[in-house]
């Protein structure tokens, strides 16, 4: 292909998987939250808090894994605040989510004061003797950081959980009709709280991937809108785990590809290249959903509606 002259497709493919991981993690978490009927617009705030807390913990302990655990805990803690406000005090979900983003951005800037210019411990990469040295597959599949595999595993896990498990069925029931689920005796608020916490932990991990692996440094505001892209992705993927992954890889992939095309000096107008990740991702996800009238059914019917147990 002349279009790809001078570009190593394996390097680009490997880079796209890395670039897609933060939004993939955040989006799969938000998918579970929304499947339980809760719209949490605070993804950006939870991501950036995860980015700074994960960074701080990794620097303090010298362990990236502990950093990731702390990031997940921080994301979940912020999500826990959201859960208290939304489930306990029946606050408006949209307003609370937006406030969560603002709070997360501000709090992360405060926590991050002492970490400017600090370098985190190097994130370990998978190194399987033999496999990681394979010509193409080695670089593509067997040489990433732990979060890349976590992201894929989470997608598979969420898919299986929602589709095959009884708990997944209950979670979906809560998201479709909390009144019916409540009438059947399911603990609506507990299910939603757990889903919110899961979403927060995933977003925190996504943020930590930015600060510990992809960039790697702490910079104020470094998520730069990734949380909003993750939110949009869930909708365009019509709340289906594998499509979320497809969307994240498309977005990350085209973003990386267009930078490589530019660097290689391919003669395509740059302004089109720069907007292509947004356009192509939306187009593809809309098209695969378009000819199915029941696509709308995938939107949880009780999404964003507060639950108040009557009687």
């Amino acid at each position: 292909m002349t279009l790809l002259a001078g570009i190593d497709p394996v390097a680009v493919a490997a880079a796209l998987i890395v670039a897609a991981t933060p939004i993939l993690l955040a989006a799969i978490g938000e998918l579970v939250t929304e499947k339980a009927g809760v719209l949490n617009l605070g993804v950006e705030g939870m991501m950036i808090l995860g980015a700074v807390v994960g960074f701080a913990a990794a620097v303090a302990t010298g362990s990236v894994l502990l950093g990731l655990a702390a990031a997940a805990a921080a994301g979940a803690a912020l999500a826990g605040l959201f859960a208290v406000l939304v489930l306990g005090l029946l606050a408006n979900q949209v307003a609370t989510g937006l406030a969560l983003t603002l709070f997360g951005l501000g709090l992360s800037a405060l926590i991050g004061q002492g970490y400017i210019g600090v370098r985190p411990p190097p994130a370990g990469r998978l190194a399987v003797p033999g496999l990681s040295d394979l010509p193409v597959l080695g670089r593509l599949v067997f040489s990433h950081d732990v979060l890349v595999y976590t992201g894929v595993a989470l997608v598979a896990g969420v898919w299986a959980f929602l589709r095959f498990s009884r708990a997944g069925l209950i979670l979906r029931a809560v998201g479709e009709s909390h009144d019916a689920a409540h009438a059947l005796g399911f603990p609506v608020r507990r299910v939603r709280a757990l889903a919110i916490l899961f979403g927060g932990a995933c977003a925190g991990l996504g943020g930590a991937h930015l600060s510990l692996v992809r960039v790697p440094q702490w910079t104020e505001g470094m998520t730069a809108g990734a949380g909003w892209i993750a939110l949009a992705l869930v909708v365009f993927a019509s709340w289906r785990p594998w499509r979320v992954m497809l969307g994240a890889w498309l977005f990350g992939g085209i973003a990386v590809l267009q930078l490589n095309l530019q660097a290689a000096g391919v003669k395509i107008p740059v302004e089109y290249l720069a907007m292509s990740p947004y356009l192509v991702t939306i187009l593809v996800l809309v098209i695969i959903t378009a000819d199915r009238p029941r696509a709308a059914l995938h939107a949880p019917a009780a999404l964003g509606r507060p639950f108040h147990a009557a009687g």
Partner: protein
Amino acid sequence: MQSTKRMLAGAALALALAAPAAAEPVKVGYIYVGPIGDYGYSHEHNVGRLAVDAHFGDKVETSYVESVPEGADAERVMTQMALAGTDIIFATSFGYMDPVNNVAARFPDVRFEHATGYKREHPNVALYNARFYEGRAVIGHIAARMTKTNVIGYIASYPIPEVIMGINAAYLHARKANPQIQFKIVWAYTWFDPALEADAANALIEQGADVIMQHTDSTAPMAIAEQKGFYAFGQASDMIAFGPNAQLTAIIDNWGPYYIDRVQKVIDGTWESQDVWLGMKEDMVVMAPLSERIPADVRAEAEAMMAAIKAGTYHPFTGPINRQDGTPWLAAGEVADDKTLLGMNFYVEGIEGAIPN
């Protein structure tokens, strides 16, 4: 999200207005395109603001709003600042150009200072800019002498004259030092997105670049260069903390003295609209200490160039220079005029690729 942040800032300003006005300090407002924690461009403007605070103490009251998108949002923020009784507003990014002039028309008593633009439609608008291209000429020379692959990676933000001028200045001096040099340019279409800037740096390294230049504001490209063992140059701010081995030098924007001077003029009642473009000579453009990794001869060449620019004996855009298409731009010995530079929309001869529209 951003707008809510600004609403809060606006409310804070309104509260400040309601407070008892005892000594009536001069109110100075700043708007930044990125977070002050970018440790690049917006950070340095904020360093300038803090210099004003330190210099005047109680006589001034400064405030700022960060991460203000270029466009309608900027207009809203400046309107709020003006309504809150701000005396002088520094709008610190190119894209605030039209918003500044729109708001200035509605508030003739508020002074507006716009950085890096060229529109001055009202008597209460002043323009200030730094000759960043002087620094870019120096780093172009150093880059060309340090590269082993002869490929320099350049992360550009938006195709505006400021950025194109920087690419041209760096390229001209790189080619002069090393005729084999090649520039690979990536347009990021953002001023601040660390993840994207990091990806851009990786893509350029993948394409053979071993020295990275950036005209975006975050420290991410520096971090990537440090991680992978390549060289880079700090943008707007000394980024040595992010790349102790990678940073060869940095172009530092030193706004403090200018801000102090202009605020003093507001206090004295002598503020007037003006259009200034200051450089190394006036210490508005300052180079960070040259890295130990630069060999002595290269260091001497770079220092000589800086001294000549500072003394006013050398202008980085001195002919003969042709445009990219081969047509002559400057004859031998001819020096570019400021107007052409500030509207620069063409590459010089030798740069590959086209400028996006």
